[in-house]
Each structure stands twice: as C-alpha cells, then as structure tokens.
C-alpha cells in the first residue's frame, strides 16, 4: 500500500498528520500504562496492609497484564478508527481546496515555453522602452538646438528689421527704390552740371 506522505497537509500544519497521530497514540498509550501501574501499586499497597492475605504480587501482576492486554487490544482498535477519522476529517486538506499561498496556481499554469515567451516579451518591451527613451532624449536635444538656432535666426531677422527701421526713420521706405532714385537724381544732377559747364565754356568763348 503506497504511503500518502500528506505533504500538502504538512505544508499547512507544519507537521505531518501521521506524526501528530503517532504523538497522540504514544501519549495515550503511556497514560494507559501509567494508570494501570498506579492501579496495581494501590492494590499491592492495600494487600500489604491486609494481614494473612494469600494473594501474591505475582498474581496481581497477572491480573494487571490480563486486564491491560485486553484494554490495549481495544485501545489499538479504537485508536486505529479514530486515527482514520482524524486523517480523513480533521488533519486533511480536502482535494478541492487550495492553500492561500498557492492561490496563484489557481489561474493558468505556465509551461516552460509560455514562460520563456513571457520573459522574452518583457525583454523586448524593455529594449523598446529604452529605444523610446533614447528617441525622447534625441528629440529633446534637437528641440533645444532648434531653440538656439531659431533665436539666432530671429536675431538676424531683427537685425534686418532694425536696418529697415533705420531707413524708415530717415524717410526711406524702400532702400532699393531710394538708391535707384539716388542714381537717377545723381545722373540728373551730373547732366545739369555738365550742361552748366558747357554753357559756361560757351559763354567764355563768346
């Protein structure tokens, strides 16, 4: 008959039910013997106090053994029955019951492959997360850089604006037109000067 080690019960109780029963059996049996011994002592003492009594201690011992062997037989039989009931009804985890510490077993039990798959998935996600973090750093770095570049570009634009404003402050709305009209006016002035010089020459010679 294969012995049921009742490991699951030992996990709950911290001892094996069989050990517990053995402990109770030995204790009960010791008491039975002790009490029988006490009975015999009392009887022997009583007999001592009775004069000319023809019952010998050996005879009393035989009576004790007779009563004890009967009691022991009944004791073992009754204890065997009690032990069965203990192991079935008290010191036992019913088959449909899971101990609290094993709650996680209630759900899906994981095969080696599934477990490795899950671990692989986690590693992939960790890599992905790191990549995303690096991307974030790079994007933030570029945004910082853009801020600097934009500031410089805006500075340059401001410079051009200021130039334009300087012109505007001095009545020049459009430099190019002003220059063109300057060139034209200069040309006109030169022509006028040339004419004047020619007229002058002519007057000198006449």
């Amino acid at each position: 008959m294969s012995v049921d080690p009742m490991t699951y019960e030992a996990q709950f109780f911290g001892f094996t039910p069989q050990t517990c029963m053995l402990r109770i059996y030995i204790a009960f049996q010791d008491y039975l013997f002790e009490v029988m011994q006490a009975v015999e002592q009392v009887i022997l003492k009583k007999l001592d106090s009775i004069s000319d009594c023809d019952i010998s201690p050996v005879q009393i011992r035989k009576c004790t053994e007779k009563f004890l062997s009967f009691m022991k037989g009944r004791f073992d039989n009754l204890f065997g029955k009690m032990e069965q009931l203990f192991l079935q009804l008290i010191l036992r985890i019913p088959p449909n019951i899971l101990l609290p510490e094993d709650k996680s077993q209630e759900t899906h039990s994981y095969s080696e492959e599934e477990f490795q798959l899950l671990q692989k998935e986690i590693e992939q996600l960790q890599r992905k997360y790191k990549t995303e973090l690096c991307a974030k750093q790079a994007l933030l770095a570029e945004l910082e850089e853009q801020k600097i570049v934009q500031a410089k570009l805006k500075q340059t634009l401001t410079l051009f604006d200021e130039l334009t404003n300087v012109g505007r402050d001095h009545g020049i709305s459009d430099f190019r037109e002003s220059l063109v009209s300057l060139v034209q006016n200069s040309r006109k002035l030169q022509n006028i000067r040339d004419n004047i010089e020619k007229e002058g020459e002519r007057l000198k010679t006449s």
Partner: protein
Amino acid sequence: GTTISRVKLLDTMVDTFLQKLIAAGSYQRFTDCYKRFYQLQPEMTQRIYDKFITQLQTSIWEEISEIKQEGNLEAILNSLDKIVEEGRDRKEPAWRPSGIPEADLRSTMAPYLLQQRDALQRRVQKQEAENRQLADAVLAGRRQVEELQLQIQAWQQAWQALHGEQRELAAVLREP
C-alpha cells in the same frame, strides 16, 4: 449539511474514543481480572476502578489540551475551516505541487511578470505617444527654422541686390 468545526470534531472523536475505551474496560471486566482482590475488597475495588477511569480520562484530555496549546492547533484548525468554507464552491480537484519546483514556481511568478509586462506596455505606449508629440514639435521647429532661413535668405538677397545699385551710384558719383 451543517459543517462542524474541526476543533469540535476533534473533541467529539476523542470523547467517543474514550467512551468506547471505558465501555470496553468495564467494571465487570475489571473485577473479572482482579477477581480475588475484588472478593476480598469490593468497595476498595470500586474506588480503585473509579479512580482508574477518572485518571485515564483526565490524562487524555490534558494531553489533548497540551497538543492544542503547543501547536496552536485550535487556531490552525479554525483557519483551515475558513479556507475550506471559502473554497466550498469549487468541485474539481485543486492544484497540488507537481514535484517539479521550477514548474510550480513558474505559475507563482507568472502573475507578477504579467503585471510587469502590462506596466512596461503602458510605459512604452505612453513614451511613444509623448515621442510622437515631440517629433511633431521637432518637425514644426524644423519648418520654422526653414521658414526663418528663407526669410533671411530673402533679406540677404534683397540687400545683396542693392549692391548693384550701390556700385552704380558709386560709379555715377565718382565720374569726373
């Protein structure tokens, strides 16, 4: 129907055990075994027998109490009652250790790894969303930089275009 607590069951069983043991070791049987002493001292025999029974019962109940005390058995049995009560709806046999620690441990760890995976998934998704926004911002920034560069280029060309007029003006002004 009504579930008896394990502690009560234990006491009942011990009590039954004792009653049957005492029934087996009846006074009749006791006097049969100690016949001659009984004939000599019937009252004494009765007293000794009574004491025998009382002492046996006391010792056994003391032992039971001691075991209950020692292993805190009552509390443990009551907690087992509770566990069984909570699991009463479940009919099929529950899981038991497979004897392969790695296999059993996988299921213990799996819920936490699943949690970690879900948390990581959420983090990745959150980071991806954030990065999408950042990428949009970067693209917008690039466009703005391009825009500014074009504006500056336009200005630059405009000013460079003045160069021709400047030269012409200088030439005109320089003419003798």
